[in-house]
């Protein structure tokens, strides 16, 4: 009997480990299982396929394109967040018949740098980054790879601009980890608020600025958000995966507002007034279209901003009172025309920018450690 129990426990542990780390196949894979396997493969980044953010947005783009054209597709979940594990997943995908591998997240920059040489007849679409080696000394994108980054600062700019135009004067920014994409969102948000305040002649805007250091929903984040709301913050731009859920929970209790990120998050809580979106699905689809049309933009580093429909606010689901579609169209057109120059996370020489470099005069930004 004791042996039986030992066995049972051993199985329980093995099972749970396997379930934690195993490569999970797509649950709703409608592609016909054909001999050559799955043509379009996606490797997930930190977080699951249904993170309501990066992975999900990318996957939705793949599914939409693949189902329309009857192409087999599948996603692979790496066992851990290391270059080796990512490479192992890529190998798995290639052995599974992948012709195009889509990888969302800047953490894939190094794995793709290696993989583009290993699998020369496989094409790689890297979302949110460009391939480089481990110590950033060599940036190279081969002809079988393409790097797509988004102008997050433009998306954040739209959100900040809209919030101030709508009448909010006390703002908060709560990012996940201070990774480049998140920093760009935050800096754009501050600059958008500044621009709108200057137009409206508002003398002062308060902005609290914080990175939680993770992408999880935690009581700590909820408490911090509640304390901000209690102190008078009217809207928080929650920029980091599940961090948003804790902020929404705080906003529901405080009767305040939240701005979502990456995808339209209005369905998750009544408190979401708008979302600073990236056109993840659209850009993945256009890259896949280009590949199947035979003009894959290999070797290029694409930047999707307003001009390429890479950023937007979901105006249909937004809960604005004073900020109108016409206002949105006007500011969006300005971005498209390139009339607005924004400070990003780094300047042209690669020097990291801080909040003080944004040239804010109306917006009083306080960095909360």
């Amino acid at each position: 009997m004791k042996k039986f129990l030992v066995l049972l426990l051993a199985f329980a542990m093995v099972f749970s480990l396997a379930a934690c780390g195993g490569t999970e196949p797509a649950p709703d894979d409608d592609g016909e299982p054909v001999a050559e396997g799955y043509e379009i493969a996606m490797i997930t980044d930190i977080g699951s396929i249904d993170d309501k953010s990066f992975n999900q947005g990318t996957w939705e783009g793949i599914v939409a394109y693949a189902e329309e054209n009857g192409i087999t597709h599948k996603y692979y979940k790496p066992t851990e967040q290391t270059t080796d594990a990512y490479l192992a997943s890529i190998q798995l995908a290639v052995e599974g018949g992948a012709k195009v591998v889509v990888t969302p997240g800047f953490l894939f920059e190094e794995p793709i740098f290696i993989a583009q040489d290993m699998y020369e007849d496989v094409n790689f679409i890297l979302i949110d980054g460009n391939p480089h080696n481990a110590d950033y000394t060599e940036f190279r994108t081969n002809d079988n790879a393409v790097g797509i980054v988004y102008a997050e600062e433009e998306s954040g700019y739209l959100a900040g601009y809209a919030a101030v135009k709508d009448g909010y004067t006390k703002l908060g920014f709560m990012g996940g980890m201070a990774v480049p994409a998140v920093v760009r969102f935050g800096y754009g948000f501050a600059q958008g608020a500044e621009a709108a305040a200057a137009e409206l002649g508002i003398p002062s805007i308060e902005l609290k600025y914080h990175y939680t250091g993770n992408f999880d929903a935690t009581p700590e984040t909820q408490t911090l958000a509640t304390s901000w709301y209690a102190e008078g913050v009217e809207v928080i731009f929650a920029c980091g995966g599940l961090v948003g859920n804790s902020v929404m929970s705080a906003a529901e209790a405080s009767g305040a507002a939240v701005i979502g990120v990456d995808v339209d998050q209005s369905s998750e809580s009544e408190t979401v007034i708008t979302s600073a979106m990236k056109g993840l699905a659209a850009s993945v689809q256009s890259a896949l279209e280009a590949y199947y049309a035979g003009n894959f933009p290999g070797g290029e580093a694409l930047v999707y901003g307003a001009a390429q429909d890479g950023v937007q606010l979901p105006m249909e689901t937004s809960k604005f009172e004073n900020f109108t579609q016409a206002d949105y169209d006007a500011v969006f057109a300005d971005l498209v025309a390139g009339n607005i120059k924004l400070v990003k996370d780094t300047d042209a020489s690669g020097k990291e920018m801080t909040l003080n470099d944004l040239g804010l005069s109306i917006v009083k930004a306080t960095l909360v450690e």
Partner: protein
Amino acid sequence: MSILYLVVQQTMFFSIPLLIVALGGVFTERSGVTNIALDGMMIMGAFTSIFFINQMQSTMSGQLLLLIAILIAVVTGVVFSLLHAYASVNMKSDQIISGTALNLFAPAFAIYVARMIQENGVQQITFSNTFRISSVPVLGDIPILGGLLFKNAYITTYIGLLILVISVIVLYKTRFGLRLRACGEHPHAADSVGINVYRMRYAGVMISGGLAGLGGLVFVIPTSTQFNATVSGYGFLALAVMIFGQWKPMRVLFAAFFFGLMKTIASAYSVIPFLSTAQIPSDVYKMIPFIATLIVLAFSSKSSQAPRAVAVPYDKGSR
């Protein structure tokens, strides 16, 4: 003043789940079985009860739904803890191994099952929070005290405090409590006077499972709008609270509030007037409860209050 209210209200969100789960830990350890699977049991309890809320929230809402969810969380925790009880009482296995297995199993199970049974196939279970009491009738209007304790509260806060009172009574004022404690101190002596040690230890583990399951639900409700198969390691934190509280319910209460207050300050210090200018990094506040636990352990290890027979499987034949 409103900041003081805020700190107290938020402290409750941290402290009450810690208190409930740590009390569960007290029961199991006092019976002589260590239970490091509290974290896994929290996850299981939260998983079933949040899923229940997810399914039923279209037809019912408010306190009744929450109360039924609480029952479900408790039952789930009890059932799940039976695995641990069987392994550690009947099979005399290493209780740390068994607890580790359950801790590994719970989140994987929650993710797997959530994906299987939810129509959209995702691992997160969303719920809408209709349980917050913005102000308790009558009591909420009391000056100061009403703002501290009876506004922006959850019914679970009062249930947690009630559990504390019941725990004190059960452990120290009933025959059951005396027998339970005897089994944790010297099971052979207890057996020699006719107490069924196995049954007592089963009871201790099941109580801990039930309370941990409840704690999982209480933890998730105020802090998010969805359950993602994790309780952020609060089950382990509750173990620290239990040790900091030296296995005594009233001290556990103190420890839970101390941990909760420090967690709140670490998160919200930027709006607390005298702390926001003090220039102390938030990491310091985050470390304080753990440093305090280490200090308490260092000074109290000679006269440690840990039950003597904890983590030692009871074998009638051994001497």
